[in-house]
């Protein structure tokens, strides 16, 4: 059946079956331990990334439950104050750095190459490296927490509490190095996505035909590239202050504590949009499928995402309204904080119009989008409230803020993400998740979320501060707190049901087929789960909704080699073919590089000299990585 594959064999003359066999020979990841450690397949790494991020979500959720147990009654002594400090810090840090950002990038690692119609992500080995770095960063934080060395300074680690004077021991250093690990991995993925989207799109996928999730990830990746260096500069300065006695944040020697807040929030506010924009993209990509019509307002949606990306850099000071900055500066940041509501509003109205003109099909992913609408708009409105300086001064550091950002983050990002998981799960696994269980999950999470977090607005207005370990009986906060804690248990049950459904469906779900939802974008043009090479022949794109407009026949491109890993490089604007480029084979060097970098970074918590001797194995591993192996992929 399978013809002998010669040098420079092209796909043009091969029938489907021999083509599949030939492509598998070069693209399949080898089985066994070596294959698992050496794989550079974006789908394998993407799945791992997503699964790992959800494990950290579950861990962070357990910590949330412990906090709610402690706060359920006044003057409770379930946890010690020190453990409570570690718990809220590790909860926030996990959710932001180990769940929210990585899970969004992970979805992109899996989906973007499929949605733009290519065979692997750009820089696949960097992708493998980024996963290992992320995994180590997560193990570092949680390992430290389990041996009572968890950071206890809040997820934004304000100095002087985090500085050498008050943050004794190694807890803060663990936090700061965890930042280094996760930022390296996030930046690496951002670069991969930018290059994949700009240069590896299917022929014909001009800028106005890019799926909106891909647009969202492109904008997000640029935000990551511009914002994450700020937190790396900040955490490096913090480590230096603690380790070698610099004075960046020490006012006694000319340093400044607010410098930390400026640097942190210059990253930290765009961070919100790093989490939110991918969710927006998911909605724009999922919605048309369930209302059976193309998205309303493609161009305004793209422009809105780009302007959100730009405006997100002009908001950071609204986290610092109570630090006594000049009034004029505060007014500017109030204005910009309110201005970002405009592009957000444009998106909401475009989605509403899409639904209005469509014929909604109420399947689980669509239910999560509806849950998003209500929850996110609530969070957006309290956001406009706290953008005002006088109100923020009153509400700062209270439970009102806790309620606000959970509405924005859970409503704005987690609900669309879960909708996205239900939507793309058949592509990931080849099986459907349960529609019946899914409706319960959506309903339970939506109701329990609102019961858990809405009363926190009231608690904040009643004066309950965030991060408080316990409260006296006569504060009168007991009843609402008990209600919140009980609702949190229901919320956890909803997540448990979701995990149950995912694990069960992965094995026993109904087989999905290539395109179970009848969707329009390219990831549905291949098998579920896709073969290692993604597309036997690369699709050619003629419209923004390719699978809806080509009558069941997929226009494709021929002429690529099948005796080496080959994909297509196209131009940035019009996606015109430029070159046949090779893509690397599996290699163990990214893992060695990650382990060597780990030794350097962990060593540097103990002694600055680790940076010097640690650089040697890192250099060796990187040389091993880049040294050409003489395979066909090297030919040019």
């Amino acid at each position, binding site marked *: 059946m399978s013809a002998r594959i010669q040098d420079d064999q092209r796909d*043009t003359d091969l029938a489907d079956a021999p083509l599949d066999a030939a492509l598998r020979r070069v693209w399949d990841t080898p089985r066994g331990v070596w294959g698992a450690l050496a794989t550079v397949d974006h789908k394998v790494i993407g799945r791992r990334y997503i699964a790992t991020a959800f494990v950290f979500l579950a861990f962070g959720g357990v910590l949330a439950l412990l906090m709610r147990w402690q706060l359920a009654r006044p003057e409770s002594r379930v946890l010690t104050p020190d453990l409570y400090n570690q718990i809220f810090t590790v909860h926030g840090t996990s959710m932001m750095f180990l769940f929210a950002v990585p899970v969004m990038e992970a979805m992109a690692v899996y989906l973007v190459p499929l949605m733009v119609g290519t065979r692997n992500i*750009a*820089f696949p080995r960097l992708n493998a490296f980024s996963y290992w770095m992320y995994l180590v960063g997560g193990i570092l934080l949680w390992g430290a927490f389990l041996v009572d060395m968890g950071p206890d300074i809040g997820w934004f680690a304000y100095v002087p509490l985090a500085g050498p004077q008050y943050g004794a021991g190694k807890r803060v250093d663990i936090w700061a190095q965890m930042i280094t690990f996760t930022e390296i991995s996030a930046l690496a993925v*951002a*670069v991969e996505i*930018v*290059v994949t989207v*700009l*240069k*590896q799109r299917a*022929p014909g996928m001009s800028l106005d035909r890019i799926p909106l999730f891909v647009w969202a990830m492109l904008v997000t990746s640029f935000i990551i*590239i*511009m914002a994450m*260096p*700020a937190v*790396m*500069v900040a955490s*490096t*300065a913090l480590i*230096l*202050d603690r380790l*070698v*006695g*610099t*004075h*960046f944040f020490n006012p006694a*020697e*000319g*340093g*400044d504590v607010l410098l930390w807040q400026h*640097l942190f929030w*210059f990253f930290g506010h765009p961070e919100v949009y790093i989490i939110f924009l991918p969710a927006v993209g998911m909605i724009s990509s999922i919605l048309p499928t369930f209302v059976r019509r193309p998205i309303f307002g493609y161009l305004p949606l793209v422009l809105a995402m780009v302007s959100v990306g730009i405006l997100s850099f002009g908001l950071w000071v609204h986290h610092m309204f109570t630090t006594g900055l000049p009034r004029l500066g505060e007014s500017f940041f109030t204005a910009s904080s309110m201005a970002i509501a405009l592009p957000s509003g444009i998106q909401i109205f475009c989605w509403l119009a899409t639904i209005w003109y469509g014929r909604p099909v109420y399947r689980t992913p669509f239910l999560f989008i509806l849950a998003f609408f209500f929850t996110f708009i609530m969070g957006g409105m309290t956001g406009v409230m706290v953008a005002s300086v006088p109100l923020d001064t009153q509400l700062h550091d209270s439970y009102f803020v806790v309620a606000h950002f959970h509405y924005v983050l859970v409503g704005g990002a987690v609900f669309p993400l879960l909708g996205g998981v239900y939507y793309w799960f058949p592509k990931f696994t080849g099986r459907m998740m349960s529609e019946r269980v899914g409706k319960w999950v959506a309903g339970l999470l939506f109701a329990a979320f609102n019961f858990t977090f809405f009363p926190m607005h009231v608690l904040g207005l009643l004066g309950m501060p965030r991060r408080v370990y316990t409260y006296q009986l006569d504060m009168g906060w007991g009843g609402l707190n008990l209600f919140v804690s009980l609702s949190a248990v229901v919320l956890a049950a909803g997540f448990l049901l979701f995990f149950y459904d995912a694990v069960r469906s992965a094995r026993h779900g109904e087989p999905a087929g*290539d395109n179970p939802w009848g969707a329009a974008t390219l990831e549905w043009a291949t098998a579920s789960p896709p073969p290692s090479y993604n597309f036997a*022949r*690369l699709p*050619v794109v003629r419209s923004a909704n390719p699978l809806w407009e080509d009558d*069941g*026949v*997929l*226009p*494709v*491109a*021929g*002429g*690529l080699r099948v005796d080496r890993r080959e994909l*297509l*490089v196209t131009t*940035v604007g019009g996606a015109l*073919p*430029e*070159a*046949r*480029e090779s893509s690397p084979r599996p290699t163990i060097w990214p893992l060695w590089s990650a382990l060597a970098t780990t030794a350097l970074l962990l060593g540097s918590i103990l002694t600055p000299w680790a940076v010097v001797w640690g650089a040697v194995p890192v250099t060796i591993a990187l*040389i091993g990585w880049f*040294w*050409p192996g*003489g395979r066909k992929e*090297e*030919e*040019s």
Partner: protein
Amino acid sequence: MKQDVVVDLSDLPMNGSGTASLTWWGTVAFMLIEGTGFALMISVYLYLGSLAPAWPIEAPPPEWGPGTGVTLLLLASLVPNVLLSRWAAARDLRKVRAGLLIMAVFGTAPLVLRVWEFMALDVSWDSNAYGSAVWMLLGLHTTHILTDLLETYVLAALMFTRHADNPRRFGDVQDGAMYWNFVVLTWLPIYACLYGIPRL
């Protein structure tokens, strides 16, 4: 799905060069990351300077000598660097080998002189916030010289092996040369900041 072959890619080149190369774009993206890092460090320097009653804090301005020497060396290195990039574009292996060896020297020299530049700062990183800022700014840039220099060494060694005569390698050399331009050009605002601001 049924497929219909509508485009033939057979005659495309087997790897992309210039802006058709993925590594070119990757290099640009990393320059954007690191450029942001430099801009932020300069902002930290200016921010701390704007708060201090006197700047530099309890130290003389850095001595001109070694830093200006480094600047001149870096600027001079642009000439062989641009030539190297051209030779790589022309795929002239003999000249590329020579160019890489020259660039190895031109990368090493400013790194050696940098040692004196650190001493000429006349302040320690743990003296005060001014010292911390100048050491970190200079340190950050030195790491860039160091990493690019290591890359130049490895590339130079690679170009004397059987892997050398390959358009892909020449692309690597061009990307390396572009990155060195970046390292040199980002130095200029840092130089102006470190040596000019304290004298204002």
